[in-house]
């Protein structure tokens, strides 16, 4: 008995250690008051309201500068202010571009939607329904930082531009899938300019941002055109807009100056539809319409094949795979995550169940994503068969980022009057 006491004590101490229990009882001081642990409160709702107000004002000003003042200079000033406030000062988060994911996660049933997110997500879209992409013109800090570095924009061949414009569909689909399953916020994780706004972040992201800016000097706004998922949603909304950027204040004289001025190739030329014989056009349209369901089915099948790969976006799935690999001896060693999991003493079955549920979600989600991509490609092909008759140069509602460069170059109106008076046209 005497000898067993230390043993019991040792066992107790060890058990206590395993449970993180008290090894040293707190002292009873003669006269010392314990300090209290402070708990500073989170940012207040007032800060959210200020941000919403700033966003609303910026959107209103952008719409005003594009459609009423029609001034490129005013748009640039607004873009600089927006970049300063939404980018450097506010740290670039939360932004409408990323809010897509919060909405997607709520749709997947994994998060509450703060009013701030709902408003920030909806405002630019609603503005776009009425007056087009004012958000892209002078509010979005990602757009502003790129727009300010455009020096000598080269024209990207239309076949290349058209193909690259399929990328945002894939990015949007992936981001929604990853957020809806609660796995990752890809748009935020791979936001190339966040590192520059915050002057901190992963080196790869900062380098990616700087590279995009370097490319952006000759290829205008690459992120906006070929990656931005929210820009894609805005382009859908802008198709309904009442106003497009009106290049010529009166009658267009087809001088082509605006087409050269547009850095993003958003200006539709007269009769830009391919002049093919009518029966040929009809045949092509019929062929693409037949092809459409085939493309959707192929996309869905491809998505289904990709599901296990995409499921690895989720940390739980990755951890379950790692534990499997360790159990079967396929893994060389353990990872921090697997060690941490074992330390929690949670049954592996539990985790496998979670991972299986997530894989199911990804299977459905990837299939839908693939079908969506098939539909996208098919839709593009159908739209290529459309014949248009246009007699003047017009800004494309969906693609125009409302930067206002064409307004500056259009000789009709004030500029023309000045030329006639012998002054320098600006």
């Amino acid at each position: 008995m005497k000898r067993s006491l230390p043993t019991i004590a040792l066992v107790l101490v060890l058990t206590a250690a395993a449970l993180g229990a008290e090894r040293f009882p707190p002292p009873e001081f003669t006269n010392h008051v314990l300090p209290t642990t402070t708990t500073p409160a989170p940012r207040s709702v007032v800060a959210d309201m200020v941000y919403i107000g700033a966003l609303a004002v910026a959107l209103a000003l952008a719409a005003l500068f594009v459609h009423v003042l029609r001034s490129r200079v005013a748009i640039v000033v607004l873009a600089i202010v927006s970049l300063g406030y939404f980018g450097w000062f506010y740290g670039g988060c939360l932004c409408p571009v990323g809010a897509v994911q919060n909405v997607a996660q709520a749709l997947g049933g994994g998060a509450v939607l703060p009013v701030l997110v709902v408003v920030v997500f909806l405002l630019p879209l609603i503005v776009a329904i009425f007056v087009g992409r004012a958000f892209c013109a002078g509010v979005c800090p990602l757009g502003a930082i790129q727009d300010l570095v455009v020096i000598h924009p080269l024209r990207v061949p239309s076949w290349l531009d058209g193909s690259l414009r399929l990328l945002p569909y894939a990015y949007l689909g992936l981001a929604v899938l990853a957020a809806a399953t609660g796995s990752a916020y890809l748009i935020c994780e791979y936001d190339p300019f966040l590192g520059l706004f915050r002057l901190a972040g992963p080196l790869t992201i900062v380098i990616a941002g700087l590279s995009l800016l370097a490319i952006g000097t000759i290829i205008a706004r690459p992120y906006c055109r070929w990656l931005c998922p929210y820009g894609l949603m805005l382009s859908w909304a802008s198709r309904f807009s009442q106003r497009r950027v009106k290049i010529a204040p009166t009658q267009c004289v087809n001088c082509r100056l605006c087409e050269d001025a547009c850095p993003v190739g958003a200006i539709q030329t007269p009769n830009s539809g391919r002049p093919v014989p009518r029966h040929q056009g009809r045949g092509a349209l019929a062929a693409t319409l037949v092809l459409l369901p085939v493309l959707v089915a192929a996309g869905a099948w491809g998505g289904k094949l990709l599901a296990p790969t995409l499921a690895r976006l989720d940390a739980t799935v990755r951890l379950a795979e790692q534990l499997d690999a360790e159990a079967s001896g396929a893994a060389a060693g353990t990872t921090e995550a697997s060690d941490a999991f074992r330390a929690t003493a949670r049954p592996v079955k539990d985790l496998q169940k979670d991972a299986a549920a997530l894989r199911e979600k990804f299977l459905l989600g990837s299939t839908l994503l693939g079908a969506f991509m098939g539909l996208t490609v098919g839709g593009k092909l159908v739209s290529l068969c459309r014949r248009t008759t246009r007699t003047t140069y017009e800004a494309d509602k969906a693609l125009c980022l409302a930067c206002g460069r064409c307004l500056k170059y259009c000789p009709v109106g004030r500029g023309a009057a000045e030329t006639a008076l012998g002054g320098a046209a600006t």
Partner: protein
Amino acid sequence: MSAPSGRQPTRRGALGMIVRIAGAVGLGAAVASIGRWAGGPAAASTTAQREVWQLDPHKCIQCGRCATACVLTPSAVKCVHAYAMCGYCELCTGYFPPDPYDLTTAAENQLCPTGAIQRSYIEDPYYEYIIDEKLCIGCGKCVKGCAAFGNGSLFMQVRHDLCLNCNQCAIAAACPAGAYRRVSAAHPYLLKDRSENAKESPQ
């Protein structure tokens, strides 16, 4: 936006406007109903409904990523002290490295890389350890030491006077232990207290 100036409003323009307004209202309603779908309110407006990031100190493995992964420099995660849990030991394993040269506050004896822990004598044999959050970088070295040989009264918390409450917490994405989660903004801290140890205490 009314019909463009200088033109008579046409039937088609009015129809278009009705479609647009309906679209905008429908979009708003759709997004709000997604909020309801998620089982929460249509949109979280009050502090009780909003959510912020926090780490569960019981899941934390002190890997050091809180210091490096946060978008802020220094990190918004700091070491906090549950004073009621502390043993006030002279040989504090959260303050001193495993074999200190001397039990004094000299820099070479401190585990904390920035000297953010202030050690002060209270009464024999007790010493108090207070965290200076301005110096703390959230590396978790002291937390590791305290958890290994002490009462576990030092632990990590996201400090909400600093936290930007990012859409996706960069540390949460990097945390190998899955210790981060969103918590209600009304109760934004997951603090340790004495009760959890006292009930398992071998006395």
